[in-house]
């Protein structure tokens, strides 16, 4: 795999420096057969430094997961060596089975088989609340 150019695949650009490994795990990229390049601490005019992930296959990526982790990321879809689509992310309205509720009094702690649902309650401050018990998500942890 040539790190500079891929023929067909996905480039995740403008990742906050140092967060690429976290994304790698969230998106389950370790399970892929294709080549994946993680490029850390790339110089960026806008961000100072950034990370980039290049995936040498056009896999389907959960944009909600991505938007939740870092809405600043740009997703470039590559076909025939050229960018055919640029997706800008935003915080998704709902998170389904991305994070778990930590409230021990929440029904999701007792009943198996329920979807873990979080709803964006304050976009400005990126606050999500559990759909079941209204407990806010404290940090972006899985």
């Amino acid at each position: 795999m040539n790190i500079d150019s891929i023929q067909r695949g996905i480039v995740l650009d403008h990742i906050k420096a140092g967060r690429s490994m976290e994304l790698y795990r969230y998106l389950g990229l370790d399970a892929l057969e294709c080549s994946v390049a993680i490029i850390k601490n790339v110089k960026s005019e806008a961000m100072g430094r950034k990370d980039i992930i290049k995936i040498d296959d056009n896999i389907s990526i959960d944009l909600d997961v991505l938007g939740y982790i870092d809405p600043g990321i740009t997703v470039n879809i590559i076909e025939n060596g050229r960018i055919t689509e640029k997706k800008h992310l935003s915080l998704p309205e709902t998170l389904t089975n991305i994070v778990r509720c930590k409230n021990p009094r929440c029904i999701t702690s007792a009943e198996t088989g329920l979807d873990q649902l979080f709803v964006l309650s304050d976009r400005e401050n990126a606050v999500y609340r559990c759909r079941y018990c209204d407990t806010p998500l404290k940090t972006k942890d899985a």
Partner: protein
Amino acid sequence: MRHLINITDLTCAEIDSLLDLADRMMKAPAAYRETMRGRILATLFFEPSTRTRLSFESAMLSLGGGTLGFASADSSSATKGESLTDTIRTVSAYTDVIAMRHPKEGAPLAASFKSTVPIINAGDGGHNHPTQTLTDLLTIRQEKGRLHGMTVGVCGDLKFGRTVHSLISAMSRYPDVKFVMISPQELRVPEYVLAEMRKKNIPYTETERMEDVMPSLDVLYMTRVQRERFFNEADYVRLKDTYILTEDKLQAARQDMIVMHPLPRVNEISTRVDDDPRAVYFKQVRCGRFVRMALITALVHAAEAGADTLFAQEERNEY
């Protein structure tokens, strides 16, 4: 399918229609004796609450319907390890509407995802209790004649008292409502509730002393200050009497103020206040029965008509 999980599930128009129906039912109960004939209400109380369960059963029986269910988790199949959603799937095959109370927050919402009949949240842990809020709204409207243009004092444990948070969020939707929060420092209304109020420009003030604000109130909503909420015994002893409503303190209140309490009461309202015409907490219990009658009727009729709005069928159903 419409359910009632959180008071904010209802639009203001739906709340008004529910309270109107409850008023009519209260005035002429005999006219509604057959309204739910042939329908069955399940009361699934995974956590005991005799008061609330009886209120639902009384409501359904008053409408000519039947009831079945259990009064505690010991007598349900939950003790055999059955999941909540399996219990709900089963019970919704037997009944037309389900009132459930559960110790876990969000359990009624989870139930509503799988139920084929309307779910009414009859309390999920300390989280939501929307029929208590409907009861409170009906009481205020009956006693004061309106829900807007009101100064509402809430007193006691405002930190953990969710009936208060729910009342605030319901009353905040009416114009010109002010709140006065009366509580010890330790039991103040949580910041996220206050932030929400500021965002909506709902005026409020906070105080530690009931006496100072008494003359300004249209409604005084009392709640219990529980000993176990205090960090130390000294604070509890220091503060507990501050939040007991006595005849003396009531002297300063307006003649048309009303005193409410979700009950059960322990000692936060002196029994000598009970005979004061401003004390309406026993009237509240009666309102609870009729507002539940209205709610059951509206939810069952909406479900039977496949309607997403309560009272969309109002003209046809002649209530």
